[in-house]
């Protein structure tokens, strides 16, 4: 029998459609069907100036806007050969780890909700609300932040921002204990997740999986540690790896990442360097408002950047960062003009989604929901 699941199904995290060929309760064959959210962002990028692409990148993966911003600006900065001041790099790391926590909280809440644990969702969204308020404080937006710019940050963080983050970092580990109290030792949770939707390391690598989906199968790779960017090499953190390769292992990896991320946030607060948050590159970085009103050159640069952009030397760059879901990569090709010739996003979820048939075939229908939750998909990123 063929069973159609989605695209409007509450546990498919968006508009994923899954075709299930079933024999009784057993899944014989599974086929994801995607494309319902395709908006042609890659094509749109080719018609915009380099700096105009930044707000588009938020819309790709709406749960980790800062990671998308970071990956894109790093790629363009690499094309330009631009040096970023240390404070901007550290704030980027700080914001990225908050984004990771934010994204993992949505994942944990909805994943638990899918499996039937309602309370966790409410707890997770309580903490997520505080992170969204922090985002609003720095960028004016709760979700589509567009806070990073080519050459640094949009603005200095507000004065009380670091104190608010410190307060959050103070109580957050206790909140993770609360989630774990509800789930990790819970017999129902363990029965629904342990040994379910298994995947071996070879399969995971062959299917191009990355992030916690890959680390849950015992492959020890994290781009923050192994190929550091934006001064991640100056931070100390562990990379949680589990050998079991089931839903429970992926759950444990992500929960452990919550704790590691808050550790990175604390280190970033303690070691935050002083200095500017924008690179000294007048033709590329927009001048401060104050200078625009008093200096002729600043006004001219502002006018030129807004009206005709800035030319980027011809070449190509592939920049990858560790997003909450895995390896997010931006491949940017420049032909020497002010508009990117080609921008391609390597969507971690698109590759991770391919592991779903491997995980579910031979299992039960009820476990499909657990498996979809455990790979943490965002359809906006898959379809772009």
């Amino acid at each position: 029998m063929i069973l159609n699941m989605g695209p409007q199904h509450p546990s498919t995290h968006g508009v994923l459609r899954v075709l299930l060929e079933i024999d009784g309760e057993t899944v014989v064959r599974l086929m994801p069907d995607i494309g319902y959210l395709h908006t042609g962002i890659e094509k749109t990028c080719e018609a915009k100036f380099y700096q105009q692409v930044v707000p588009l990148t938020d819309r790709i993966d709406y749960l980790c806007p800062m990671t998308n911003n970071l990956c894109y600006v790093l790629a363009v900065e690499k094309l330009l050969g631009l040096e970023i001041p240390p404070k901007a790099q550290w704030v980027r790391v700080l914001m990225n780890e908050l984004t990771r926590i934010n994204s993992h909280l949505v994942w944990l809440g909805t994943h638990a909700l899918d499996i039937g644990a309602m309370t966790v969702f409410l707890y997770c969204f309580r903490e997520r609300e505080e992170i969204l308020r922090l985002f609003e404080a720095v960028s004016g937006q709760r979700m589509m932040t567009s806070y990073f710019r080519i050459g640094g940050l949009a603005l200095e963080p507000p004065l009380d921002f670091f104190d608010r983050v410190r307060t959050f970092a103070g109580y957050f580990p206790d909140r993770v204990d609360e989630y774990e109290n509800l789930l990790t030792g819970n017999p129902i949770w363990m029965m629904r997740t342990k040994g379910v939707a298994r995947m071996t390391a070879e399969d995971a690598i062959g299917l191009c999986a990355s992030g916690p989906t890959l680390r849950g199968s015992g492959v020890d790779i994290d781009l923050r540690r192994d190929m550091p960017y934006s001064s991640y090499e100056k931070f100390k953190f562990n990379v949680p790896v589990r050998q079991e390769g089931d839903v429970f292992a992926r759950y444990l990896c992500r929960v452990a990442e919550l704790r590691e991320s808050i550790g990175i946030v604390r280190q970033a607060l303690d070691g935050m360097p002083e200095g500017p948050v924008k690179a000294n590159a007048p033709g590329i970085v927009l001048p401060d408002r104050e200078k625009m009103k008093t200096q002729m050159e600043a006004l001219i640069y502002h006018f030129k950047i807004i009206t005709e952009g800035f030319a980027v030397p011809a070449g190509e760059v592939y920049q990858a960062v560790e997003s909450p879901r895995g390896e997010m990569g931006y491949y940017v090709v420049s032909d020497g003009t002010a508009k990117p010739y080609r921008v391609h996003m390597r969507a971690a979820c698109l590759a991770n989604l391919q592991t779903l048939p491997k995980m579910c075939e031979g299992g039960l229908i009820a476990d499909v929901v657990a498996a979809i939750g455990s790979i943490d998909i965002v359809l906006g990123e898959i379809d772009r």
Partner: protein
Amino acid sequence: MPLAPAISDLEQLKGHPAVAKLLAWNPGSVTGVKFDRDEMTIYVDRSSVREACALLRDDAECAFNFLSDLTCVDWFPAEPRFEVVYHLLSIPKKERVRLKVKLDGASPVVDSVTPVWPGANYFEREVFDLFGIRFSGHPYLRRLLMPEDWEGHPLRKDYPVEGYR
């Protein structure tokens, strides 16, 4: 930090393990190299891309065992028009290399790398969908993102950004 000039001389770059491996296997398989912005690009002959990927994956010294990304760039109206781009990552060595295959606009066909990495499946379907490049040996080459009955390939440069109305 001024940019260092790109190196595209095969003599200077043949010491790179991936280039050396491919040259030792089949000197005709490498049609060019480029080292720019700390990134290594190897232009591979269209007929040998699948074997080249399998070789780089299995070789102990290279160990490019992970396909990070597969995409395409359209250089319309230049010929050969398309460049299919493979980004490989070595998980043990923590290194990347980029392979490129040039295809002409009249018959853009290349061997599928799904036998090497099953995960290339969606990437190749996406490229087929948006660029119209066919991958021979692909198990299920259908449109991935656009509707089944869509006409044209939107990411081609001769396809207008606003679409056809």
